């Protein structure tokens, strides 16, 4: 078995909800694998099964060649897990949290202190090392959580929505940390609701929806299927909507979707924007919003399934700094 992570036909049912409905995955060693999907797609359930926290109802999975059900103890010695919500002890300090994990992993008292010190420095937490985690910001908690899953230098790392709820700055910091790990040879499986995140980190992306794989490939392959970018236009006067619609349809060559007072249409050519601006100007229409934005998970969804994804906005997430 060559893959770092492999799953075949994973099924998990919670009451009436089929959280996973036959998922196959294979993650080559030393790569970053992105599990992309909207809220409720089954990402956390998949990660929890792979990390031995949950048994599948059907199907099989292997991590580092070991069966996650029958050889769970061995699997646990090979993996690091950072769950969707920071799972560090709020009442202990950052340093104590790391020492605790190191001791449980069999480090001597001395080695545990040394390893904790190393990680605190690496994750920029030295100044906060002696403070209880309760006082940490959301970004610091996430970093400590990630550090805690790296104490034993696992070869395979699971990151469940590692940046949900973080501000853009903290998100970039975390991306860099993940890139460093990958450079050292760690295999990473990360879940995310953001195409942009999967795009910038993952070698291979699998899109899941309602417990099923609906697309897979590299980021470029996925984007090629969607058409790259989306033109968004909102006229100042709602009465101009119909005119704006016909202008956009004519220039882009495709009828935009109307979303309230907004028009959206896939548009891969940036030169379309000046053309639209000119025609609006001629017709005396003032635009409240006119942008060309990169494809989002929602666009992937719309293209693949014909419906919108219910993506949580970062601000809705429970994981914000106190």
């Amino acid at each position, binding site marked *: 078995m060559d893959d770092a992570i492999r799953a075949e036909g994973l099924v998990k049912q919670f009451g009436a909800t089929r959280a996973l409905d036959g998922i196959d995955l294979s993650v080559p060693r030393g790569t970053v694998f992105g599990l992309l999907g909207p809220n409720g797609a089954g990402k956390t359930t998949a990660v929890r099964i792979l990390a031995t*926290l949950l048994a599948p109802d059907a199907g099989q999975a292997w991590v580092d060649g070991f069966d996650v059900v029958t050889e769970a103890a*061995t699997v*646990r010695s090979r993996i690091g897990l950072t*769950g969707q*919500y920071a799972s560090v002890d709020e*009442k*202990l300090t950052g340093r104590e949290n790391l020492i*605790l*994990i190191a001791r*449980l992993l069999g480090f001597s008292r001395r080695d545990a202190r040394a390893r904790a010190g190393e990680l605190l420095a690496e994750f920029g937490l030295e100044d906060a090392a002696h403070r209880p985690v309760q006082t940490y910001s959301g970004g610091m908690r996430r970093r400590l959580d990630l550090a805690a899953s790296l104490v034993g230098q696992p070869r395979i790392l699971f990151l469940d929505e590692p940046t949900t709820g973080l501000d853009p700055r903290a998100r970039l910091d975390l991306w860099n940390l993940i890139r460093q790990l990958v450079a050292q040879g760690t295999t990473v499986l990360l879940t995310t609701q953001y195409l942009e995140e999967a795009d910038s980190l993952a070698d291979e992306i699998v899109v899941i929806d309602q417990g099923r794989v609906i697309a897979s490939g590299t980021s470029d392959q996925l984007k090629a299927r969607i058409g790259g970018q989306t033109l968004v236009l909102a006229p100042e006067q709602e009465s101009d909507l119909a005119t704006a619609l016909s202008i956009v349809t004519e220039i882009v060559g495709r009828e935009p979707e109307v979303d309230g007072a907004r028009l959206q249409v896939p548009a891969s050519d940036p030169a379309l924007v000046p053309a639209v601006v000119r025609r609006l100007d001629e017709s005396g229409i003032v635009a409240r919003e006119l942008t060309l934005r990169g494809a989002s998970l929602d666009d992937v969804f719309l293209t693949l399934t014909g419906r919108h994804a219910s993506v949580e906005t970062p601000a809705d997430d429970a994981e914000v700094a106190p």
Partner: protein
Amino acid sequence: MSSLQQTLTLAWRSLLQLRRNPWELMDFSIQPILFLLLFLYVFGGAVAGSTAAYLDFILPGVIVMNLVFVTVYVGHGLNTDLTRGVFDRFRALPIARWSPLAGRILADMVKQAWCVLLLLVVGFLLGFRLGAPVSGVLVMLALLLVFAFAMSWIMVLVGVVARDPEHVQLFGFTALFPVTFLSNVFVPLDTLPPFIRAVVAANPVSLLAEASRGLLSGGPVLEPALWSLVWAGTITVVFAPLSLWALNRRLARS
């Protein structure tokens, strides 16, 4: 690292939490002392004629009452770990499956022993003197810890079932108040109306308090001690499997 060492490490972690959280330490250190002082000086004259005479009676009673209340922390801590994901972090580590729970219960035993000794020292400062051999203190401590261990299993169940740590506390204390007050902790059995006497006499809190009084000041020990152990055994036999079943069920569904 052996599973015993893992358990000790996890118990150390629970105790370390106290250092960072002085309120909890206050809760189970200052509160029983306040209880002791209040009951002693408010009821002492009325119940026993003098505070000095009442001290012999109330000190073991408060020790037992506090023991029962402190077991709530097992459920509270377990629920906190479950709801905050810390329990999952432990479960994803290559350590013995039972060590997180064992560590928590072990830490609770340490807290319990601390409370008993603290109350004995405060009692001593208030004028309490042993009327029985010193070895009685050790026997009492052992008896109390056995009972606390049994109670821990009930609290594990509460901790597993409750939605959040606040509900553990709410439910735990609400359920334990009648149990501790329908006992002979504050007043002797024979002052109670006959219709509740049977209930109070069979209450393990009464039995433990009576055995403790015997061990500290002299009086009947064997019978109440044996009945206390019967209670502890029964509670453990019923609640340990039930709690573990509930815990596994919760883990399998989350």
